[in-house]
């Protein structure tokens, strides 16, 4: 008899394992929180640099590190997690990370975020890269707090678990399934033989493009092309563009900057909504043709073009904008909504109805799979279209066998089923969210129109950010009651994890063995 590799095979009968191994789950979640705790060092440094108060960042880091370390140590003898625990790990990690992100807001003494629900909303909106805010006066915030807001988005964009897998040596998980539940899109594309390699490569591209955007924006500031831009704003906006986040340091969002800056940021929004695996391949092989060869990218760009043209025509015809301003505002708003970024260069809440409805329609599209954007994702729309077309063909030819192809490779029927059910579940979550907000609005006598409610729910579930009405680009979510705030927090959380890891926890069979 040879020895079984340690940690791989558990002796039978040693101990009965529960349907969901909570101890193992707790261990992994605590470890992840511990690993993320140094992230408050950046705002600490910024605070010291600008002479602002900084102890609340250190305290938050210390609390996360201390709790994470203590719990991870107490559960150190836990078994490795299995597939089933994976969903719970992902769901809980994102919840606890949001709690952790809220601590600096609470301890900062900032009056706008001194209530736990509000701080949690701001934090969840950050990590899920939604970009919805409760702040009534962004510009009065400490610079260190503004950087912390931006950093939460940047960390959440490519996925916090992906980050941990990429940077840190060893996590007792298989990896692939965790990554799949965190990366947007129906299927994960591997960029290497090992999960760790894939995670590292995604982060390398992500960091590289972020640095590029910081440099370009800073140059615009230094050369005086944009008077408003400086190195601080360059960093803060690059940190929220690439995760398709949308937090800005300015009350007017990107409208505060010059037209050139707006075009530059628009380009990086386009990149943020593109599959990073594709960008990695294009950079690695120095071959830009990987983009037009990808079916999803073609549709993504096609949707953006059509929507931009439609919006330009609508805005121009209605006399809202003319000339370059019409094109720029149409393109920028299309990009920011489709990729779920949530910046704005104008107050679209004041737009004519036709243009507003167009924007609300775009909220249901989402960027590409493997990008940092939220929402349904272009590839799912593409596959749904193909599924529907096949249904129509099979109505006439019942015996027809017609595999659906994506980038000319046949797609597994199981994946197609998952896409179909995702879209249905997404609609379901959106409707439930919208109903709860409508119910609450009626309860507290809040003045919200039907389209406002639709936009608010779609925007939260799609991780977009601003919506319409009081929550429009010039507004904020301050006026929503605590109940609605919690609903929105849940919507952002469920939406960012693409429903499944959270919804599966609500089924009885998840918690049972029978």
């Amino acid at each position, binding site marked *: 008899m040879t020895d079984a590799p340690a940690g791989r095979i558990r002796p039978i009968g040693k101990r009965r394992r529960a349907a969901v191994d909570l101890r193992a789950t707790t261990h992994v979640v605590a470890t992840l929180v511990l690993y993320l705790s140094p992230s408050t060092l950046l705002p600490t440094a910024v605070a010291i640099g600008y002479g602002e108060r900084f102890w609340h960042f250190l305290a938050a880091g210390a609390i996360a590190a201390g709790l994470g370390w203590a719990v991870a140590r107490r559960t150190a003898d836990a078994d490795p997690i299995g597939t089933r625990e994976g969903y719970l790990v992902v769901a809980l990690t994102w919840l606890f990370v949001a709690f952790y992100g809220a601590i600096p807001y609470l301890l900062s003494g900032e009056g706008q975020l001194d209530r736990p629900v509000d701080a949690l909303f701001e934090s969840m909106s950050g990590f899920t890269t939604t970009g919805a805010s409760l702040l009534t006066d962004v510009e009065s915030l400490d610079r260190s707090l503004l950087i912390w807001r931006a950093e939460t988005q940047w960390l959440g964009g490519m996925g916090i678990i992906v980050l941990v897998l990429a940077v840190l040596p060893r996590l007792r998980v298989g990896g692939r399934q965790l990554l799949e539940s965190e990366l947007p899109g129906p299927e994960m594309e591997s960029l290497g033989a090992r999960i760790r390699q894939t995670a590292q490569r995604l982060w390398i591209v992500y960091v590289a493009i972020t640095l590029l955007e910081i440099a370009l924006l800073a140059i615009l500031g230094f050369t005086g092309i944009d008077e408003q831009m400086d190195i601080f704003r360059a960093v803060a906006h690059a940190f929220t563009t690439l995760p398709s986040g949308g937090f800005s340091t300015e009350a007017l969002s990107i409208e505060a900057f010059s037209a050139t800056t707006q075009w530059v940021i628009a380009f990086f929004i386009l990149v943020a909504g593109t599959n990073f695996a594709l960008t990695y391949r294009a950079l690695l092989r120095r071959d830009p043709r990987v983009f037009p060869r990808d079916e999803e990218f073609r549709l993504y760009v096609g949707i953006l073009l059509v929507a931009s043209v439609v919006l330009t025509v609508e805005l121009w015809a209605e006399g809202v904008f003319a000339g370059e301003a019409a094109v720029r505002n149409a393109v920028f708003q299309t990009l920011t909504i489709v990729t779920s970024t949530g910046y704005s260069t104008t107050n679209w809440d004041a737009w004519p109805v036709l243009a507003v409805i167009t924007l609300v329609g775009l909220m249901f599209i989402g960027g590409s799979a493997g990008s940092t954007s939220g929402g349904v994702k272009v590839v799912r729309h593409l596959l749904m279209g193909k599924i529907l077309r096949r249904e129509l063909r099979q109505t006439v*030819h*019942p*015996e*027809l*066998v*017609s*595999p659906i*192809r994506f980038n000319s490779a*046949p797609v597994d029927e199981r994946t197609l089923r998952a896409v179909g059910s995702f879209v249905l579940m997404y609609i379901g979550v959106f409707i439930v969210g919208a109903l709860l907000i409508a119910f609450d609005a009626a309860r507290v006598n809040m003045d919200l129109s039907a389209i406002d409610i639709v936009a608010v729910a779609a925007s939260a579930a799609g991780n977009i950010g601003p919506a319409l009405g009081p929550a429009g680009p010039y507004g904020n979510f301050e006026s929503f009651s605590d109940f609605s705030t919690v609903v929105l927090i849940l919507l952002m959380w469920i939406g960012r994890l693409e429903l499944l890891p959270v919804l599966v926890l609500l089924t009885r069979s998840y918690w049972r063995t029978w």
Partner: protein
Amino acid sequence: MKIFVIGAGQVGFTIVDALHAHHEITVLDTEPSRLRAISERYDVATFEGDGTSQRDLAAAGIKTADLVIACTSRDEANLVAGMFSRREAKHATTVIRTSNVEYVELWHAGQLDVDFVVSSELETAHAISRIIGVPAARQTDVFAEGQVQIVEFDVTEGASPAIAGLPLRRAEVPDDSKVAAIIRGDDLSFPGGDDEIHPGDRIVVIGSPQAAQAWSTLLAPKGASVRDVVIFGGGRVGTAIARVLLDQGIGVRVIEASREQARRVAESLPKASVYNATGIDPDFLERERIGQAQAAIFAMKDDAKNLYAASLVEVHGVPFTVGIAHEPISVEAFEHAGIDVSVNPRAVTAEEIIRFAHDPRTRQVSMLEGNQYEVLDVTTRPTSSYAGQRFRDMPIRGALIGALVRNGTAIFPHGDDVLEAGDRVILFTRSADAQRVVEAL
């Protein structure tokens, strides 16, 4: 010639039958009863042994063989036997039979160290595409494993003005093709750039399968093209037929009874319509208007089923039926029952292999116009005076080089291309000149 046949199955039998009179044949098989049967019928040596065993091959005397044919029903056995005979009999030509089209592709790419790979499925598919592939054609023949087609067309009044009535240098001759001959009355000429094609002529075209298809559309623009062929059975034979027909631009419907197999076929052939049905359900045949098809091919595993389905489909109105007959006797049965053409894959394979036993340099001969003209497939000698010359400079008269096969791939040469030693040349010539032309190359 000393020929070594590994495998005494149906293919082996057919090969021995065709070659035993003129060659010295040794047959090797693991099954004594099959060897006994073959030696009772023919004057051949037999050896009981395993073709995949180097020791058995050596003991059977493979060293002295000129031609080794591995034609068992198992691909891997044939590959291994081919590999060993390459080692043992350094000068022998090795031919292996395979049912896997992938091996044929590998061989084309130069990855398999054997001289020829013959696939039953591909040969069957080519045989069928010869029958239904090129409409408006009087006669079709394929060379170089289906990469080159020789087609004889009638030029009718309906021929496209882009091709008829114009000097050939200005006509829109499809890429990768050449007019090898124009037959006007009893007169055959090798055309130059100034010659014209007129309605009433017959022409011989050498070109790729796609080009042959393009010619067919040019010469008979309306109606004559085959758009809709139904293949019953999506097994290896059916899939190979479907692929060859699709490559020629023909619309193909495949009917396969097994759900998993139907899915596999649909995945590998994006352009075919694949149905998961038994093919003998009258409702299905009616619903899908199978009767509208221009031809139906029956490639299911069971001959009896093929026969039954063919009868049913004929009742539905399909004008042309082709049956795959796995048992030799079925060929006759099918034709008795009214199936238009029957093809036995093993017989087709054996015929293809037998061609290698002829002149080692001349691989394939096809006769046109009542044996007055021949299409030859000749390998250029290293010492040939034509090697290294540009085509436009060649003094060959009374013959036309239609295509080359270099490293397993067909090339349709232009005037500036250069002939290399070792190229297989597919040429069209008068029978009377054939000997002279072959010697010159």
